């Protein structure tokens, strides 16, 4: 499986966020998107997730068998955690597992991110770190080859970051690929895509 993009240009409002961006990524690889704030890291990820439209250029995911589009084969984790406070931890994860692709991964995912003890707790009572871990649990619960992570470690403490690094390694080993916008190091060696004017 190969993800390739060329000549990508994104204009939002009256501002050219980035232009003529190209990269290639194949199975088992990680690409970190770095650059100053406002360089368009988040926009590139949202563009790949199909949430915003590119003004020019194209993105292709040669996925071999299935004819699903990139967004349908990608997990996207932005700055927000898509959780409902009045639903319990288990209910939130069960919904996203069913919605994004079905399968029985929910229980295992809860164990993987260490929230199995809080399954019946309403999400309102979770801390920011726990909410982020619950949000990331859906990436483990439903198998999707491409992970699009926008500063995933921002809400996580050291233990959480270690756990995330472990999940990422398992994902890569399982034949997936990861594109992550980060400030600090991810704890995994990765290709780099620099956005914005070189300082």
């Amino acid at each position, binding site marked *: 499986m190969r993800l390739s993009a060329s000549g990508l240009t994104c204009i939002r409002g009256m501002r050219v966020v980035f232009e003529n961006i190209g990269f290639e990524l194949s199975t088992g690889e990680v690409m970190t998107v770095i650059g100053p704030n406002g360089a368009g890291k988040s926009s590139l990820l949202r563009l790949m997730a199909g949430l915003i439209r590119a003004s020019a250029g194209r993105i292709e995911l040669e996925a071999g068998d299935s004819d699903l589009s990139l967004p349908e084969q990608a997990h996207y984790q932005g700055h927000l955690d898509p959780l409902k406070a009045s639903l319990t931890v288990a209910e939130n994860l069960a919904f996203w597992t069913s919605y994004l692709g079905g399968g029985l991964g929910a229980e295992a995912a809860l164990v993987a991110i260490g929230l199995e003890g*809080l399954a019946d707790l309403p999400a309102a*009572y979770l*801390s920011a770190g726990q909410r982020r871990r619950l949000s990331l649990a859906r990436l483990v619960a439903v198998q999707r080859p491409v992970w699009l992570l926008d500063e995933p470690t921002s809400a996580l403490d050291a233990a959480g970051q270690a756990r995330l690094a472990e999940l990422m390694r398992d994902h890569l080993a399982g034949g997936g690929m990861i594109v992550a916008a980060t400030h600090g190091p991810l704890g995994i060696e990765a290709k780099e895509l620099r956005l914005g004017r070189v300082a």
Partner: protein
Amino acid sequence: MALIDLANPTRFLAFIARVLPWLVVATAIAFAIGLYLVWFSPDDYQQGATVKIMFIHVPNAWLSMVVWAVMSVAALGTLVWRHPLADVAAKSAAPLGAAFTFLALLTGSLWGRPMWGTYWVWDARLTSVLVLFLMYLGLIALWRTVEDPARAGRAAAILTLVGAVNLPIIKFSVDWWNTLHQGASVFRMGGSAIDPTILRPLLVMGLAFSLLFLTLHLAAMRNEILRRRVRALWLMQAHAAQGA
């Protein structure tokens, strides 16, 4: 036991556990006597036997306002004296108040039916009770929109006090509205209340319903305290797992 001790939820739960059984017995006895007296009360010379509905309508209409008064005192408790159990009392009283107001409306409509020929006439008293019922529903809706009890408590307390101030104004304007369109109310709810054979059952039934409210209110407060305890334990559980 000083009243202030009751402010501590644990002691208050113990107090409820001790008092509740007696209250249940007292309520049952009051209702038994009341219904016995009602059963043998004479017919009203005007309305015939339908006056027997008055024995439930009047206590409920009276209670619907008493419960709002209780909630207003609880609201003051929350906002002014910061009493820890005040919003528990207010939150647990609201559904009871709504139920008694609904009963007042229902029995009022059934009581008027033979006279009016329809189930509802915009009689001044009934209309005010209807507006009060809508205010109860609004208050319950407010309780159900905010998750955090403390915040919801303060908001509900303010709404309750504003409501309490507006109730007499609403009562006055509805009466004025009624006389504006219909002249004197064609239907007098009182009936010959002064006759002792009518008055006694009415008072006993009033007492019975008041005891019922007290019993249910204490039980509902107990539930609310337990609900908050569950909520606190959930917070503890999340916090404990935080370390893991």
